């Protein structure tokens, strides 16, 4: 295992509002150029990790302990100026919902060139040229027209391509993809996954792929970390975990997914007993949520 480019160790986050734990001693490592799947049900803390990595945690939550190391530097103690070169620059985001992630009132060109102009000091003309390259790179056929369009004039798949182009604009070392395919239909999903995969290989970018879809994990992730109620319950190589899950919850989660080879089998919810047992493990007795 090479040295991780990004490493979270013992990260705990609580809600300011009622001191409820949101993350409990979460640790994970991301190697350069690799893809880590972050899997869990709603509320497991996936998006909180994504936000912490981008320095945009809401003001209603607070990090209580743990470290986030990027290239060996602790992001929690770094000066603001140094952080600016990391958040949104060396670490970029592909957001979840392409329908709401673009500003409806601004043209694509303005939104795509923001980072290039602010962070790289490019002129408007140079940024436009770069934006056209980026759009071509995400297989957009008419980049000129897309640049002058408003988001509502583009389809969901197109918008997600634009967002991916924007994420890769600053040549980040890590991309946090927060369920980038959840809001898309299955055929477009497949194209978008292939696109992310291709760009990642071309740019040697590491990706943290937040999802609740184990099918997606199997397809693109090298390693996977399973979260439950803010705790890591299992972590390892994707192939190992999917073929030989150690934790009962993981097994139930894998069994719960639809099977293409047995369409009549239906969906099996994770058994109550397994959920209760997992709660007991992560939160101790007497406390659920």
């Amino acid at each position, binding site marked *: 295992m090479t040295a991780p480019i990004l490493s979270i160790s013992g990260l705990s986050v609580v809600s300011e509002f009622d001191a409820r734990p949101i993350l409990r001693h979460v640790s994970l490592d991301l190697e350069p150029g690799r893809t880590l799947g972050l899997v869990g049900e709603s509320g497991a803390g996936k998006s909180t990790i994504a936000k912490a990595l981008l320095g945009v945690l809401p003001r209603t939550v607070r990090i209580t302990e743990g470290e986030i190391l990027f290239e060996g530097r602790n992001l929690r103690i770094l000066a603001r100026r140094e952080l600016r070169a990391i958040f949104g620059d060396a670490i970029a985001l592909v957001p979840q919902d392409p329908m709401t992630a673009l500003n409806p009132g601004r043209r694509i060109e303005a939104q795509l060139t923001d980072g290039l102009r602010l962070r790289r000091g490019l002129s408007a003309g140079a940024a436009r040229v770069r934006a056209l390259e980026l759009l071509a790179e995400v297989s957009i056929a008419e980049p000129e027209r*897309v640049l002058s369009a408003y988001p509502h004039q583009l*389809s969901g798949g197109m918008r997600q391509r634009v967002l991916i182009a924007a994420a890769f604009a600053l040549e980040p070392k890590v991309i946090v993809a927060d369920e980038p395919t959840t809001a898309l239909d299955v055929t477009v999903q497949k194209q978008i996954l292939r696109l992310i995969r291709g760009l990642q290989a071309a740019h040697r970018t590491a990706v943290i792929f937040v999802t609740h879809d184990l099918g997606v994990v199997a397809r693109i992730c090298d390693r996977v970390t399973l979260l439950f109620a803010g705790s890591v319950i299992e972590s390892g190589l994707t192939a190992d975990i999917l073929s030989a899950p150690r934790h009962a919850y993981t097994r139930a989660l894998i069994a719960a997914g639809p099977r293409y080879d047995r369409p009549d089998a239906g969906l099996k919810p994770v058994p109550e007993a397994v959920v209760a047992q997992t709660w007991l493990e992560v939160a101790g007795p007497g406390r659920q949520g």
Partner: protein
Amino acid sequence: MMEASASSFVAPGGPALRARRLAALLAEPKVTLGGGFILALILVALFAPWIAPKNPLDQELMLASVPPVGFTGAEPGYLLGADDLGRDVLSRLIYGSRIALIVAFVAASLAAFIGTALGLIAGWYRGWADGLISRLVDIWMAFPPVLLSILLVAVLGAGVGSVIAAIAIIDWTRFCRVVRAETMAQAEADYVVAARAIGFPPIHILMREILPNVVPALLALVSLEMGIAVIVEAILSFVGLSVASDTPTWGGMIAEGRQFIHQTWWLFAAPLVALFATVLAFNQLGDGLRRALDPVLRR
């Protein structure tokens, strides 16, 4: 397959888009009618000296209280009749539109500016800044606006400037509330989160990411506010707290006409109709603009 989906995009961009948007704006009857009326009124106010048939201050005591054309005893050249001092009502109406429009535009813009600035601050920073501004709005809105405006003008002294200041000082709260709520909603949007992650300073995010999306709602409000400003100016003129009495204003004309309402009703009716039509036009324009400019409503 991939290429097909990537080009499944039909809307034209650039100049074509702008033309289409203008067309959408003009296809909205509320915009064309309301805006047309306001535009005509602006032209009338600008070119008042050339349009007005008489000097609005010229008294012709022999012709005092002649009725409008079409009534018995009407005097040719006095289309809407003359007041008790023999001044041409139409000319006074035309000159009166100047004050009405100046107050409408300047006061509404000022109120919008103050309210928007404070609303953006409250909605973005929340915490104590929001608490302070929101409490201020609550207190402000508890005052009866007309009384407060009369009080303010009485303190500041009569005059157009005071009227404008009074309206702006009172009515910024309308804008503040709407902008604050909208800013809070927008602050959660992914594009704002992305802008924060990239490291744009708050001022940039507020101006470029949030404000443009507040503008459609704001435009409607500004237009409504212009209507309100016209009314408040008329009220202040009515109680004699606006401009000096030798400058014709609609409110002043209503006040003068009120005294003789049983004898010379046209002195009362003419400025009232002008006021009514202007306020209606501002309101319709605001509503139409909101419909035509909102990218979501337009879809």
